[in-house]
């Protein structure tokens, strides 16, 4: 059963510039789908349409059977069930780490301060950052901040997770600590949609790979098919460039 369905989605930034062209795909429960493609191909935009951070003009998107594209009033509630991790972490710099993890729990899920804190500490332990609970985001390294950002999404008990280039803003030595957490999540059966250039990660944990170019889904294939014998020429070129070294 699909957790996320994207059906014939098109989006224009202005009447002349189309960023998404009739995109159709789906992500099953427990599936890990990697979205890749050259910059400007619309992959970040596509993943942001799933929790309606980017509105679309045409097509429908559902998450867990609920239509995201027509929903208005309950949108915040739906978003709280879809975890999102951003390229630039986007932790709230004026709040302590633990407060970052509690904000959504108390304001959106209505949890008490105590239970939110307990949950926050549990998640921090999971990403190995308990010692930093009382610090501010600016005092942590990029890799640590991104792990906090993952924990901030996890405390909401999401039914699926979206990752928008979670490692592209990181120094090379910090990429693995973030990928490790993501691999762990994938193994536990979390439904994940991941925009990334980390082909090692894709090979290791992805079930499917979606290749985008110029706003179109050019290829949507099982991982082994995609890496073994990509059908489209554009995907072949992309792979040869990205896997050259």
């Amino acid at each position, binding site marked *: 059963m699909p957790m996320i369905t994207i059906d014939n989605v098109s989006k224009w930034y202005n009447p002349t510039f189309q960023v998404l062209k009739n995109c159709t795909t789906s992500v099953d429960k427990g599936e890990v789908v990697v979205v890749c493609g050259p910059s400007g191909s619309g992959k970040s935009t596509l993943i942001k349409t799933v929790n309606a951070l980017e509105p679309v003009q045409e097509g429908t998107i559902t998450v867990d059977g609920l239509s995201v594209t027509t929903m208005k009033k309950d949108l*915040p509630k739906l*978003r*709280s069930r*879809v975890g999102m991790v951003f390229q630039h972490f*986007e*932790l709230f710099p004026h709040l302590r780490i633990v407060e970052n993890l509690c904000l959504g729990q108390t304001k*959106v899920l209505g949890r008490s301060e105590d239970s939110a804190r307990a949950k926050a500490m549990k998640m921090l332990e999971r990403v190995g950052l308990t010692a930093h609970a009382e610090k501010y*985001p600016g*005092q942590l390294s990029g890799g640590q901040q991104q792990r906090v950002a993952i924990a901030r999404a996890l405390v909401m008990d999401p039914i699926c997770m979206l990752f928008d280039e979670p490692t592209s803003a990181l120094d090379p030595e910090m990429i693995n600590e973030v990928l490790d957490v993501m691999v762990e999540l994938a193994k536990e059966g979390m439904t994940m949609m991941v925009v990334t250039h980390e082909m090692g990660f894709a090979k290791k944990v992805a079930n499917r790979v979606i290749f985008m170019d110029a706003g179109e889904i050019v290829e949507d294939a099982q991982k082994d098919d995609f890496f073994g014998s990509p059908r489209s020429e554009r995907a072949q070129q992309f792979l040869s460039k990205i896997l050259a070294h």
Partner: protein
Amino acid sequence: MFSDFDFNVIWRSLPYLFEQGMTFTLTLTVIATIGGLILGTFVALMRLSSNVALSTFAASYVNLMRSLPLVLVIFLFYFLMPYIGQWIMRADQPVQVGAYSSTIITFTLFEAAYFSEIMRAGIQSIPRGQVMAGYAIGLNYREVMRHVVLPQAFRNMLPVIFTQTIVLFQDTSLVYVLSITDFLGAASKVAQRDGRLTEMYLFAAVVYFTICFTASFFVKRLQKRISIIR
């Protein structure tokens, strides 16, 4: 030069300088700051509004105010206000506003333009990603503003607001053009009357410097204390 320096004239005029002069200077500063902040917030929200008419009106207002010297605005309002009043109230004769009220209205309107720009910059300085992150964890527009955008914007703009208030405190001395007795005006009057220009103007300078320098010092300390670690 200082051999015939008469400290006594300062001492004698202290009650007049502070009870009359400084009281007015501070009153004007406080009223124009509070009024300017309230009005400025509305102007900033109008300017950020998606309604073109509102944002154009706000932008024109801000640009007009910022393009005119304050002295000119003080004069213009003083001379125009009676006629504007007459027009609004449809009276037969120009409405007498008086230098005092005219000054307070002018400074409030003038400062509103500056404060609105500070507020607008403060709100816009928060990256779009922060707003997205707020929405992504399920907050609604009001909650995102209240818990994510405004706390950060406020920290960014508070020192600038205080600095603008210090500038305003100095600018209030411009009311001399309407012969109002502010602190500098009071010092000036004593200086002319007693022929003690050096003493009185030096003393006024020391007072202005002490107040503004101390205030700036505290603004800097405040800035350090509330600034966000990035």
